[in-house]
């Protein structure tokens, strides 16, 4: 497979996975902003997902409609959901002969959906939750179409690697965004609320209540988000999938490329699996998340150098 094609497919998956993560975080943050007295505000999200200057953030942060508009629909914000979808579609167009027609059509539909005026209206003026849900479903449709129609060839491997690498990064980022909820000096009630929204943002709340019978403690939340191999948004799960797809590249790689990539993924996976620190130890958690992030970037760098020819 051409390096450019592999690169394009991999980024296609990353853009779509990132959009899904952003939409869910925005959705949950919006609900918290309506229903939670200790709502921490939009500032952290604007730092993470926006491209505004300090003054612009101060001007925007009080107005929910403006915040959502900037993060989801703003065409001038290079990292808005809108631009992720535009990029994803452009990537799909460039590799049309390597993805199925159905996958291309689902992306094309997503693109046309996010351009509709009434969707932006729904999110900004009417009911943000319905609006975000509508967009989110387009992403689910894409994921399902990939599952249902793509041949399990090299292209699929790069699509999956992009997806799980991005997912692991998003999990680490979202945990970092909410890491105050783990801190020991946070008042218990606020801490539990923060952790609950963190679980919601990572689609883990239902599984958590079933597993831990409703008592929300930092230790249990950390256990699930980092180590639980059955939870599809945990670091352990994403890294496991990443390793699995990496191993399918073995026969289609130069031996030294494969060895390096496999080593880096294995290292990241084991560093997560064998990490041990106290959930309430703020600096240790921050350091762990930081290290995981940089190891994931090393994996991305290895893909870039060995497989995508961008040295």
């Amino acid at each position, binding site marked *: 497979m051409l*390096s*450019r094609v*592999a690169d394009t497919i991999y980024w296609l998956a990353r853009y779509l996975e990132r959009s899904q993560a952003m939409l869910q975080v925005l959705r949950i943050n919006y609900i918290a902003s309506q229903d939670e007295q200790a709502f921490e505000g939009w500032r952290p999200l604007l730092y993470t997902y926006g491209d505004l200057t300090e003054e612009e953030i101060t001007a925007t942060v009080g107005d929910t409609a403006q915040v959502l508009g900037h993060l989801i629909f703003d065409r001038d914000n290079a990292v808005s959901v809108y631009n992720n979808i535009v990029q994803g579609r452009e990537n799909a167009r460039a590799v049309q*002969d390597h993805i199925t027609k159905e996958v291309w059509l689902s992306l094309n539909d997503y693109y046309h959906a996010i351009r509709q005026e009434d969707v932006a209206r729904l999110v900004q003026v009417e009911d943000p939750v319905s609006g975000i849900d509508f967009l989110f479903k387009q992403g689910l449709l894409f994921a399902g179409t990939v599952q249902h129609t793509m041949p399990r060839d090299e292209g699929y491997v790069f699509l999956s690697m992009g997806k799980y690498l991005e997912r692991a990064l998003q999990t680490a980022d979202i945990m970092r965004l909410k890491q105050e909820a783990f801190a020991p000096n946070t008042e218990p009630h606020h801490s539990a609320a923060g952790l609950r929204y963190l679980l919601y943002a990572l689609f883990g709340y239902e599984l958590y209540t079933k597993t831990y019978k409703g008592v929300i403690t930092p230790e249990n939340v950390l256990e699930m988000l980092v180590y639980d191999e059955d939870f599809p948004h945990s670091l352990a799960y994403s890294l496991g999938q990443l390793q699995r797809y990496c191993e399918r*590249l073995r026969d*289609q790689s130069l031996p030294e490329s494969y060895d390096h990539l496999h080593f880096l993924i294995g290292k990241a996976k084991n560093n997560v699996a064998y990490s041990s620190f106290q959930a309430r130890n703020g600096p240790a958690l921050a350091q762990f998340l930081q290290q995981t992030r940089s190891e994931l970037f090393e994996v991305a760098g290895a893909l870039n150098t060995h497989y*995508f020819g961008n040295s």
Partner: protein
Amino acid sequence: MSENALLNSYPELANVWDEMFRAEGTRPEYRHFVAAIENLQGSEMTRKAELAKKLFLSQGVTFTVYSSGEGIEKIFPFDIIPRIINHAEWVRIEAGIKQRLRALNIFLKDIYHQQFILKDGIMPAALVYSCPQFLREMVNVDVPHDIYTHIAGVDLIRDHDGELYVLEDNLRTPSGVSYMLENRSITYRIFPDLLPKSNVLPVKDYPDLLFRNLLALGARQASEATVVLLSPGIYNSAYFEHSALARLMGIRLVESRDLIVHNHFVYMKTTKGLARVDVIYRRVDDEYIDPLVFRPDSALGVSGLYWAYRKGNVAIVNAMGNGVADDKAVYCYVPDMIRYYLNEEPILKNVPTHRLDDPEKREHVFANMERMVIKKTNESGGYGMLIGNAATEEQMADFRTAISQDPRSFIAQPIINLSSAPCYIDGVLQPRRIDLRPFALYGPSGIDIVPGGLTRVALREGSLVVNSSQGGGSKDTWVLGPSS
């Protein structure tokens, strides 16, 4: 004559050759087709036209127009009434194009080597050396099998008296062949059984013939040469054609960033490392193909490609430097080339052309501008062109100034009254002007022309410009087999 209202209400244009009708009724080559549609109701034709449009969209046969950074896909308008050419005429067209291509190919070999044609005074040297597409870099470069013009799309037009003329030779990167193939595949879906019953020759061999020629150019002693199609990328309006051809031939579609040159060999970057490339069918123009030799700001080319080519380590299709042979001023000398190189009389005529660097001719053209078409010698696509009878005084004055400043870059031709063909527009048959672009493939085993081509239609009423960028559409082109 038939009783069909659709056919009877056809308004013929005065002093224009119509491909389907003549004074005494339908031309013989159209009889079969007319008999088949005679009994169709108007609504059925409309349904067929709509079906054709839907098929184009659902097959993704589109070209992309970029505005405000986002691509919008448009379909190339298709008219469902085919243009039909009888066998005898096709035999003549085929022979005429082969003759021209042989002469043009020898001309390119000659002009980049010994230049006998200049030394013998057949062509003025100044004309060649002032042509911006004459690449000094190609002088004394030996190209594989001495073939320069691997793929040519020769534009033919027909005047009011029925005579065919060659308008342009298009020897660089002619496009449109994918529409020839797609138009045919739409026709057999909307007119079931009509093609076999009408004895229409197939065009489907084009990709196989092209691929065979490309493989034959891979000089390397390998079991099979690696052939790629180099495209400028998704922003190019012909990207659909690039991906369609790559798919039909089963070769890789690459962009400039996929290729690198190392030690004068060309490689493509794959997930498995570098893989050697032997033949490049490029759809990137000469001036962009190697930033180290040509335009340094080009992002569409590959650094070092020119030297790999010179060393014979990679074959490039079409050869570089072909622009000197399809320059519109050099065009005047193609009949002379045919006589000089082949010792034959030209089968197909040239449109009478005035070079404007001759002061006498220039005065003549300025005095008769409203009866002339003025063209820039190095532009195509219907740009840089003035049609005398449709131009304003101001436009003519602008052209006069431009011509006086740089006469070498312009030519003038009498306005040819392009032939018309019936098109199904708004529920009735209306005459629209057409041309014909057959595609010729020149390989080590000879010249092949698939029977057919792209018939382009000027869809705007009264327009003489058939280019797709200027509101043109296309028709399926049927060449009938020998009558048994």
